[in-house]
């Protein structure tokens, strides 16, 4: 009775290790290909547009909604012991350190990572990736690298936008409906925030960008089995990258705050 159980466990462990190894090798090859020629500027610009510019509305809306709802909760919570003034300070801390980078990362894994997985997955099952190989073009260099670079540049920028919008989300709520003075709010918002916190936020954006692009491309590249495979790739990419964003967020916070 024990042997089949052990066998199954062993097989699962091996499968997980194989997946992890495959991801690591492809990621390594991607990073190794960044400086290889030829440099395809048009392709890179297209990715900047797809990953960055086109994502601004989503980031603005989510950041606004999250920062406003968080301000509601804070103002309600602090009112319990007559400390409403603290709401804007904690709002600033929360937005800069956690809400902006994590919400941006999660939203982008849904918007950008899934698109990468679906696009590369379709290319894989319609033999377009084989066609690239046959035209003497490394798919890693042609497909992975511009997506990774775009995510590495754009995620920190989008995080910065989310921080800025988060400030105005809190402002909208605390100043216009809770009657806090706008001068006090703008001073208090940044009171607990140090420059280091902004650096942490941008670093998180950078790491999340790498996770989103690499996982999205990897899941797409490894798509097998027609329509079902193409359907699974984005789902699997979003789940995997969201999970890694949340796990790495914990470790990044722990490491960078020390």
């Amino acid at each position, binding site marked *: 009775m024990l042997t089949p159980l052990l066998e199954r466990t062993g097989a699962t462990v091996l499968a997980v290790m194989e997946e992890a190894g495959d991801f690591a090798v492809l990621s390594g090859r991607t990073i190794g290909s960044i400086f290889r020629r*030829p440099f395809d500027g048009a392709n890179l610009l297209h990715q900047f547009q797809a990953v960055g510019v086109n994502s601004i509305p989503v980031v603005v809306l989510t950041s606004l909604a999250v920062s406003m709802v968080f301000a509601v909760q804070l103002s309600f919570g602090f009112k319990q012991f007559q400390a409403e003034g603290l709401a804007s300070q904690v709002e600033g801390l929360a937005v800069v350190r956690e809400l902006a980078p994590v919400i941006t990362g999660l939203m982008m894994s849904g918007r950008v990572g899934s698109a990468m997985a679906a696009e590369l997955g379709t*290319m894989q099952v*319609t033999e*377009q990736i*084989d*066609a690239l190989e*046959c*035209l*003497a*073009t490394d798919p890693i260099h042609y497909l992975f690298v511009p997506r990774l670079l775009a995510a590495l540049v754009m995620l920190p920028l989008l995080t910065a936008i989310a921080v800025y919008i988060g400030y105005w989300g809190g402002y909208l709520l605390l100043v216009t409906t809770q009657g806090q003075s706008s001068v006090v709010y703008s001073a208090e918002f940044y009171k607990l925030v140090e420059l280091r916190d902004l650096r942490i936020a941008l670093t998180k954006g950078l790491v999340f960008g790498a996770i989103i692009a690499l996982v999205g491309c990897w899941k797409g590249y490894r798509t097998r089995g027609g329509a079902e495979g193409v359907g699974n790739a984005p789902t699997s990419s979003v789940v995997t990258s969201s999970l890694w964003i949340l796990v790495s967020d914990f470790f990044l916070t722990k490491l960078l705050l020390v």
Partner: protein
Amino acid sequence: MSVPVIEVVNLSKAFGPKVVLSKVNLSVELGESLVVLGGSGSGKTVLLRNIMGLLRPDTGHVAVDGRIVHEMSREELFETRMKIGMCFQMAALFDSMTVFENVAFALRRHSHMKEKEVQGRVEECLAMVGLKGTEQLKPAELSGGMKRRVGFARAIALKPKILLFDEPTTGLDPVMTDVIGRVILDLKHELGVTTITITHDLKSAFEIGDRIALLFRGECLAVQPPEEFKANPDPVIQQFLRGDADGPFLLDPPPPKRTPKGVNV
């Protein structure tokens, strides 16, 4: 005797328990046109993918210009692939790009041509496959036969020495099949390239091929000039040429043949 341009030696490939190719031997001389026939699932496409280095053989090897494909480094493999034009079964055009961008793809990446020269070469390639004036269309706006021909134009853009065609006529009407056959012959004569064409369309096979090979259950049954191939007494070859369901070709017996009056026993 000269060194064959493509040499397939004892090539075997299996996917799990399913043996797709088993000790296949083939060689193609410079300027020769080899046609590989075979039923669906007989390993024809796997053979081409091994030649392109997209798959790794289990045993045996494929050599292009005397160099073993699966032992090459990535860079050497890409260099070899620049000498080979591969035409995919479903064309495999990049659907986010226009016809022009598809054909210009390899030129822009691998040649040092100026944009004007690229434009000239793309027009030349499209004219060769009879598709002048389609540059700005997207692959989704093309018919099946046009897609294949754009695929051909993309494959010949870098002036390869070898052209591989993977079922170029499957799924096309008889007239378009003939057009594609003529395009392949044109390319062969105008460019003087060595070609391997995989097909199960007999008419175009005999028009295109200098030699015909038949793959059957992963093995290569015969490699002969068209006339000798037609006269080959092997029952499998004769059944394939007749296009008859009865015979040794199928593993599972086919359903009985019906006539308007009932089952013909």
